[in-house]
């Protein structure tokens, strides 16, 4: 019990710092790398919650593919690999205010509602359970998502091809 909480706290802290770094660093590649840290932390949280399959998928897809894709994008858009003078919008206070405001509202709402909700202990879901659910209850969204992926693939190729 206590161990989980401790682990949770450590990982949360790392994730938050990394996220802050993602949005504030002046180096694009550094930002991508800090993103990797965040994504890894998220995977860890999934494992803490007992969602094995999702955590593994997170690592595979996000860290393995998405970040690589982002780095490809960085490379192809010839972003300067070193520090860049200006990665931020001229006006940064407004977004800060908005973000803070948003955080305040959400925090209030969440704490107000879920103050005492406890997570059940020892609930581990394995891949078999997930697959059962997908292929029994959620087969249609599954198929839809596959079609969506196909569309996205074709779309990306079409959009980005050289004339």
């Amino acid at each position: 019990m206590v161990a989980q909480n401790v682990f949770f706290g450590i990982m949360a802290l790392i994730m938050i710092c990394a996220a802050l770094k993602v949005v504030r660093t002046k180096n694009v590649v550094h930002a991508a790398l800090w993103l990797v840290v965040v994504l890894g932390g998220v995977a860890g949280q999934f494992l803490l919650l007992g969602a094995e399959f999702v955590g593994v998928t997170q690592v595979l897809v996000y860290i393995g593919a998405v970040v690589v894709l982002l780095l490809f994008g960085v490379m192809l858009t010839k972003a300067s690999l070193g520090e860049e003078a200006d990665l931020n919008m001229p006006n940064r206070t407004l977004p800060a205010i908005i973000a803070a405001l948003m955080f305040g509202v959400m925090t209030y709402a969440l704490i107000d509602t879920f103050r005492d909700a406890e997570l059940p202990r020892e609930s581990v879901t394995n891949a078999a359970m997930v697959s059962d659910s997908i292929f029994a209850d959620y087969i249609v969204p599954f198929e839809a998502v596959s079609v969506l992926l196909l569309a996205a693939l074709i779309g990306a190729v079409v959009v980005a091809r050289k004339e």
Partner: protein
Amino acid sequence: MLLVQFLLLSSVLFCIGVYGVLARKNGVMVLMSIELILNAVNINLVAFGTMTNNIAGEVFALFVIAIAAAEVGVGLAIVLLIFRNRSSVDLSSIDSMKG
């Protein structure tokens, strides 16, 4: 573990992501911030799924991951196109929708 700690974590990540979307000038950076947002949502989903002993949370999270991947692909394609046309990915200079 309390549920609320996961939710708070997710909200923090969400807000940081929002800040990043609004504050970053580079298109790729914006996409990264969007990834942050999506991940925050994922944590939320899985937490609620575990809370209510419903596998749907995890299933939904899987779907979100898939979609996020697709969206990044398409988004990057668009960014590339913008870069090809303008040879810069500075989003603050894209204001032809002015007025």
